[in-house]
């Protein structure tokens, strides 16, 4: 908090009269404090009413059989029943967990690898670099929408563009989106297609890597692969870490594409039943809000756990250089 380097510290007894002419010396600071809470008040109110209270409320609801439709009076406390059902009697729950893990664990690394690879291709000044950067970024803006999910699903349908492409090589495709073995794969491809956002962040990170390191490595006779492993990866590790956390959390929350592909059912044969989709079905199709609340809390804990694991392992591979900016 080196905030007061340029001006006399408000706590210093020598504070100039001009800076605090109104209500004496301490007033300046006190004023600031009141103003701080004035400016912060909408956010504080939001934290309380939109975030904190609903979180506690959902914790409470998760121990009830609340269904939204009937009155509050008919709501009953059921203890751990929702959690017990979830873990032992709802095969769809475990299925959703598997689907979501598979999606996040496959899509995230692929997406980050694509992002890093393309960022390295673009990390030279040449004509058109900006244009390519923009083009590759575009899918990140469009890809999360319903419209694009519709296009994607049709692209991998029987008569879609993908099978037309395969037919050039004499391969006869199928309706990939209706095949339980492949449906999730098409959604993973859609996620990877949106590699542009992490790419832009990688690109900014690559620009920070000192050129001298590569020059020194060249003098020592290192090949490009060696330079990548020994310079690029370690120097970029904080950025990789940042992208990994962000994209993993994103990956767990996939909803739109799965909803569109399966028309809200999670099919074919539950193969695209993402966790959030299962939660939606329980809450808004079956009106089991208590159960959905329990699912939400398990989700929160799971994401917290995964994030904690990523942060923990980060200690071993994230390298912060001393001349950190």
């Amino acid at each position, binding site marked *: 908090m080196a905030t007061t380097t*340029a*001006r006399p510290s408000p706590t210093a007894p020598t504070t100039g009269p001009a800076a605090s002419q109104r209500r004496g010396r301490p007033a300046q*600071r006190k*004023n*600031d*404090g*009141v*103003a*701080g*809470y004035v*400016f*912060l008040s*909408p*956010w*504080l*109110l939001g*934290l309380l*009413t*939109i*975030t904190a*209270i*609903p*979180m506690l*409320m*959902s914790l409470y609801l998760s121990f009830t059989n609340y269904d939204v439709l009937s009155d509050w009076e008919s709501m009953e406390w059921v203890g751990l029943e929702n959690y017990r059902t979830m873990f032992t009697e709802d095969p769809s729950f475990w299925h959703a967990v598997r689907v979501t893990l598979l999606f996040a664990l496959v899509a995230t690394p692929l997406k980050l690898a694509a992002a890093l690879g393309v960022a390295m*291709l*673009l990390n030279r000044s040449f004509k058109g670099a900006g244009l390519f950067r*923009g*083009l*590759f970024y*575009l899918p990140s*803006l*469009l890809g*999360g*929408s*319903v*419209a*694009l999910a*519709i*296009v994607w699903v049709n*692209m991998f349908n029987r*008569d879609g*563009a993908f099978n*037309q492409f395969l*037919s050039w090589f004499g391969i006869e495709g199928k309706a990939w989106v209706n095949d339980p073995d492949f449906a999730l794969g098409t959604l993973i491809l859609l996620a990877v297609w949106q590699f542009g956002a992490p790419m*832009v*962040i990688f690109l*900014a990170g690559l620009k920070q890597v000192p050129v001298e390191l590569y020059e020194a490595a060249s003098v020592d006779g290192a090949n490009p692969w060696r330079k990548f492993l020994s310079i690029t990866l370690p120097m970029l590790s904080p950025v990789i870490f940042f992208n990994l956390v962000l994209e993993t959390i994103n990956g767990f*929350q996939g909803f*739109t594409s799965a*909803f569109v592909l399966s*028309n809200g059912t999670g099919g074919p044969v539950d193969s695209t039943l993402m966790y*959030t989709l299962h939660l*939606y079905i329980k*809450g808004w199709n079956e009106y089991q*809000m208590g159960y*959905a609340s329990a699912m*939400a809390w398990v*989700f*929160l804990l799971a994401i917290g756990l995964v994030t904690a694991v990523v942060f923990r392992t980060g200690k071993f591979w994230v390298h912060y250089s001393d001349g950190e900016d």
Partner: protein
Amino acid sequence: MTLQRLARPLTLVLLSAVVLYPLVWMLGSSFKSPSEVLNNVSVLPDEWTPANYTDGWNNFDVSFGRFFVNSALVAGLTVVANCVSCLLAAYAFARLKFRLRGFWFALMIGTLLLPGHVLIVPQFVMFKTFGWVGGDWPYAPLIVPQLLATEAFFVFLMVQFMRGVPRELDEAATIDGCTPYGVFRHVILPLSRPALVSTAIFSFIWTWNDFFRQLVYLSDLEKYTAPVALTLFIDSSGQSSVGPMFAMSVLSLAPVFLFFVAFQRMLVEGINTSGLKG
């Protein structure tokens, strides 16, 4: 060496073809007649069928124009709400001293990582208890949270931006007799324009594309936004509706695309300033 020189541009061109193909294919298919959608393997239609656009526009009892108006309304109000509320909070975090500032700031960063889906059930229950779900104007649950600066990403983005504004300006204004409110009004607000523009653009695009929350809160066809309305096409998935469905998909992506064309640089830089600490 020449091979290496060619490898990079070639890879990039090939890659951009792959990346852009779905978009071109979508645009081409939106002009194909029902039989062509099935049989024409080329990207472009043999016979251009603009009727898909009029068919799609009038496909439901409510015209698609209505859905776009609803979407624009929600997105527009969200933009205003985010800009105002996040700027106020960011000013407090970036410039003012008050008790527990560090604590609140840490909480704000925490909510940045909090998945929205966790809160949607209780928020829905709460807004339903308020009587805000359904009814004549069902958009309050989509906008009120933004009025209260719950989109922590933008608060963070603006804090990062304000840290780059020289403090000497605040001090000069203070010496000239400005209160913290005056500094906000005369120094921070005018200088934060770039951060406000970034926030506005991202708010618009994200809200325009948002689906889950709109799906949950909108149940009356008249009040549907474009993404929710688009899913109706999936229900009626006869081959004849593929063309119109693509046409409306194209239209619903058009505003985002135009924003991209107009503000490309800013969008790309925008995620940089927020993505990496300054």
